[in-house]
């Protein structure tokens, strides 16, 4: 049973030439994206900067209202919810951001930061709050007695990310969107945080949408991977299968471009030429065609739909690699 289902989600940004003026251009940040996440699963959303992965994550949580499409969480359409109903629902979904230091208020103590969601959720008993905050801080590997009275600047990046994770977990949510949770961290710390997320997932029974640009990280944490390019999904499939046999040329390119820490390998030669086009005027048909070695006339006219290419693996390409 899927915990979260996203149907034809579209988010556009309008560019205006001044306050209150008519919009002159549209950024197609997220276009017609559909996917589902099963309970207990980690779906990784990967793509290069500007492809719309963070926007998609925010649109799922209704932090940015989508133009069209539906987000069904546990059978309830979040896009139709307003006010109190949405607030109640949000207790079950949380978000962890990329920059752990910037996402903590520098003037508030850690105990207060982590207790804030409880106050919003209406946990009135201060002692109960204190207990819950202590428990969750201990769960993420921090000593509550030492930590609660201190300010964010007294902690390193990795510790701040632990605090952010504690804040996200304190309400015991079912679903967490992790937006590049480890890209600001050093490798030795990154491994600690990835292990922590995995541990928390089991302990709290979480379902994760893991947004990342680093495929090496994604390979370790995810059950399934969704690849995005210029606002559209290129490929979705089980992690191992997708890494072993990518069907979309863009996925293949991304995998090939990971710098492998193996000195016998040189950087990928057959790298796509050029750079991603602007999402203001995306190419017609398949959006990857301008950089794709397999593109022909059909790719310019016909938008490829996601089709099944192998068990559980879907690709939006007229000429898939498998």
């Amino acid at each position, binding site marked *: 049973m899927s915990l979260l289902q996203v149907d034809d989600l579209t988010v556009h940004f309008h560019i205006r030439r001044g306050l209150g003026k008519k919009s002159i251009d549209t950024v197609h940040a997220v276009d017609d994206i559909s996917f589902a996440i099963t309970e207990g699963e980690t779906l990784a959303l990967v793509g*290069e*900067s500007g492809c719309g992965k963070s926007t998609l994550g925010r649109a799922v949580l209704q932090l940015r209202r989508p133009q069209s499409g539906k987000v069904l969480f546990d059978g309830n359409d979040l896009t139709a919810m307003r006010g109190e109903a949405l607030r109640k629902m949000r207790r079950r979904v949380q978000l962890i951001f990329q920059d752990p230091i910037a996402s903590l208020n520098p003037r508030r103590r850690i105990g207060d930061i982590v207790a804030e969601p409880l106050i919003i959720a209406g946990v009135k008993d201060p002692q109960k709050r204190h207990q819950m905050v202590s428990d969750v801080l201990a769960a993420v590997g921090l000593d509550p007695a030492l930590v609660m009275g201190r300010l964010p600047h007294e902690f*390193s990046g*990795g*510790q701040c990310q632990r605090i952010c994770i504690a804040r996200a977990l304190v309400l015991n949510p079912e679903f967490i969107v992790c937006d590049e949770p480890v890209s600001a961290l*050093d*490798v*030795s*710390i*990154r*491994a*600690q945080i*990835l*292990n922590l997320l*995995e541990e928390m997932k089991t302990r709290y029974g979480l379902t994760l949408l893991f947004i990342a*640009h*680093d*495929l*090496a*990280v994604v*390979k*370790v944490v995810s059950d399934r991977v969704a690849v995005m390019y210029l606002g559209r999904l290129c490929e979705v499939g089980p992690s191992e299968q997708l890494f072993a046999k990518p069907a979309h040329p863009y996925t293949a*390119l*991304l995998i*090939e*471009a*990971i*710098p*492998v*820490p*193996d*000195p*016998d*390998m*040189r*950087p*990928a*030669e057959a*790298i*796509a030429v050029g*750079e*991603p086009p602007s999402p203001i005027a995306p190419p017609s048909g398949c959006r990857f065609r301008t950089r794709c070695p397999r593109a022909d006339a059909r790719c310019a006219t016909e938008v490829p739909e996601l089709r099944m290419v192998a068990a559980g693996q879907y690709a939006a390409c007229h000429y898939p690699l498998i």
Partner: protein
Amino acid sequence: MEELLRVSDLKLQFRSMRGVVKALDGVDLVVHEREILGLVGESGCGKTITGLAILGLLQRPQAEITGGEIIYRGEDLLTKNDGEMQSLRGREISMVFQDPLASLNPVFQVGHQIETVVRIHKGVSKRESRETTRKALAEVGLPATDETLKRYPHQFSGGMRQRVCMAMALACGSPLLIADEPTTALDVTIQAQILNLLLRLREELGVAQVIITHNVGVAAQTCDRIAVMYAGTVVEEGPVVEVLSRPRHPYTTALYQCLPHGHTASELQTIPGSVPDLISPPSGCRFHPRCKHVLDVCPTVKPKPVQVGDRHWVSCFWATGEDGAALGGDDAAKSVDDAAQRAKVTS
């Protein structure tokens, strides 16, 4: 191969509000002609500072070099005055930085910016500098047209801006390029393009490079040798295949095992604890509080680099045996003398 640059026992500290930050504590590096050396380590370990120190770009008096030497083609750069360093930068040693947008002036056309560099360093005419600029642009894979020359930095994408910075660094034909995280701000597909470009520059122009990166993958794929830094010291330096396939220093081993690539195990290896505060760094070997193999001598004596193979050095008592310990005391006294000597020379 001829030795181009040698940094030995470089010590550097910063004065800050909280106290003296001992940022570099004995950095040893060698770069040979046409060689690409990778300088890898976690943030705050002193990679960038080392690069800036080589070019003499650190701000005095906050930053103070307290010991060691930087020998470039037989001359100690630390004894040179500002004017001499100025003429050396760009012509002999150049640098490209992590954020290409921040290293270009937003209000001048890129052609003008590159030409200015060429005119200052080579003292050539306007026309000649324009020709050199075009050649440099072509070398880094940008169209050498008037249109490119007349564009402003904001009109380029991130990858193209980094190419512009590289054209600027190479326009005067410097034999050594220091690239500080040249691909960190770029996407993976663009990163691969820039890494290929760096390799091509070595093949075609013979440019030796120091690539500063936190990404072991980037270093593995582009460098001939790598130097691994931890908390202001180079803990291991050697041929990339040697260092990555048979790491000798416990930190190199641990760092490599933290990488998510190729691990099938569900749990990633981690290094316990975190990077030390360099205002009060650990005594002896700076890695000892986090090290699995700590010996009795480690907390008290700083290990010296010991050669363990062809152009391969390791600073670790556990890896090389404790014989190095006896050296520690003498050398410490010697470096104090050195610093006194240098103070005399500079005054």
